[in-house]
């Protein structure tokens, strides 16, 4: 018995372009991909681009003449995160933990929830906005965004 799934014409794009497209575990090309034959039904898409958060999405492809799919990638920024207090523990989005006076972090663009602990005591909660490569110097009660000096010296890319 042969496969009963039909196919439709697919146009797969990403913002920015140049991302690798993997469909159901198979590498199919680089965006933009035009007039690519997609099977109808559930298909798992993975989009990978250096410097961006990999995207993964299950899409149920319907019967139609054609389909246009556009993935909007989220940028990853290089952040140097410093603190004068060596015993502070920083928890990002209640998931990722960072310790020490100086950390090199790769963070997704957007608003992140930061909670600061000393031992097990919660000292502060803040929202930090990540929108470029920069150095963040944390001080209790307020934070400094010291991007220019450190950025040049460290050659953060």
């Amino acid at each position, binding site marked *: 018995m042969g496969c009963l799934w039909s196919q439709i014409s697919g146009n797969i794009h990403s913002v920015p372009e140049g991302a690798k497209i993997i469909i159901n575990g198979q590498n199919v090309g680089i965006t933009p991909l035009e007039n690519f034959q997609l099977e109808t039904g559930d298909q798992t898409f993975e*989009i990978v681009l250096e410097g961006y*958060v990999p*995207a*993964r*999405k299950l*899409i149920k492809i*319907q*019967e*139609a*003449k*054609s*389909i*246009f*799919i*556009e*993935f*909007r990638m*989220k940028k*990853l920024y*290089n952040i140097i995160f410093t603190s004068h207090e060596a015993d502070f523990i920083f928890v*990002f*989005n209640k*998931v*990722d933990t960072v310790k020490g006076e100086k950390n*090199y*972090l*790769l*963070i*997704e663009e*957007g*608003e*992140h929830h930061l909670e600061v602990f000393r031992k097990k005591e919660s000292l502060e909660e803040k929202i930090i906005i990540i929108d470029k490569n920069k150095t963040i110097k944390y001080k209790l009660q307020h934070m400094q965004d010291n991007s220019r000096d450190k950025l040049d*010296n*460290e*050659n*953060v*890319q």
Partner: protein
Amino acid sequence: MKKENTSSISMEKSAINFPYYPGIILSFFLLNLGGCSGSKKFLNLKPILLEREAEVNIRYDYDVIKLEAPVIIIDSIPTAFRFSLYQRIRPGELLIERVFFPGEPIQLILPRTLFSSDTLGNLAILDPLGGNYKKLEQLFTLSSVQEQVLFPFVVTLAPYVLKFFVLERMNGDPVAQAKVIVSNGGNILGFGITDSLGFARITIKRVEHPWEFLRVSIRTGGNYPPWSGNVEVSDQTIFEKTIWLGTALAKNNGGVFYKVIEDLTPLREGPENGSPTIFFLNMGDRVYVTKVAGDRLYGSVEVFTDDPNVFIDFSGWILNKFVQVAE
């Protein structure tokens, strides 16, 4: 010969220049090492993510078909038309329904994937609104072209459906093979013949201005007297009536029922020749005979009045050649 201490000269020269070169070279390496180590620090890090759903924009381009349903109006113009589409195998799942007004073309542009690809796999229903109109249905096969025109829907008023039960008055038995005629103003509108249960169904085309009543006549080929009466019709589509034939005279005097076998049979006041005629009987009339004198019979006859439920009994004499015993 004086030898120059070239080596010492060159050393001196070198001594002059040497401090600069190492400085430059050292700085170059330090700079690059520092830079390299800075960018390398971000390699192979596990990123801190917001765990958001991937932002995806999806748009489908459907192949469409333009469906058109022409309408031919025979009687009056409806107020509106309700047009519905279904797949034949899923009559309970409405695909689309829209209301159109007279003068507006019934056209829809729909995705082809909405329909069934089976032969006669789709159903179009046109329901004219604003009156007693017949609901119209049409099965169709989806065409492969971009535009499809269905067969015209012929819009007519829903007919009257008249149902009659014809029964014998005396015992309630059904009267089969009775011809039921429906007329108005002398024009026969429809007729039917009762079945073994005494049932007849007659469909009459409805007109824009309905009649107030219809004239119903029943003929039984002489088995019963002919029956006629008016029935009221209104906006209702289905109408039912039970009609009783025959006499209600009770057989309580030891008499016998005879039926008249000739039209215009005289019923006379007395048995003698030349006796005055009370009136003439029709073929099928029932005579309840209680006395026999030779070829003359004496009995009672029921006479219908204008009200089919009101009878008058008359008694008189009749010649036996005009009657036979009723079964």
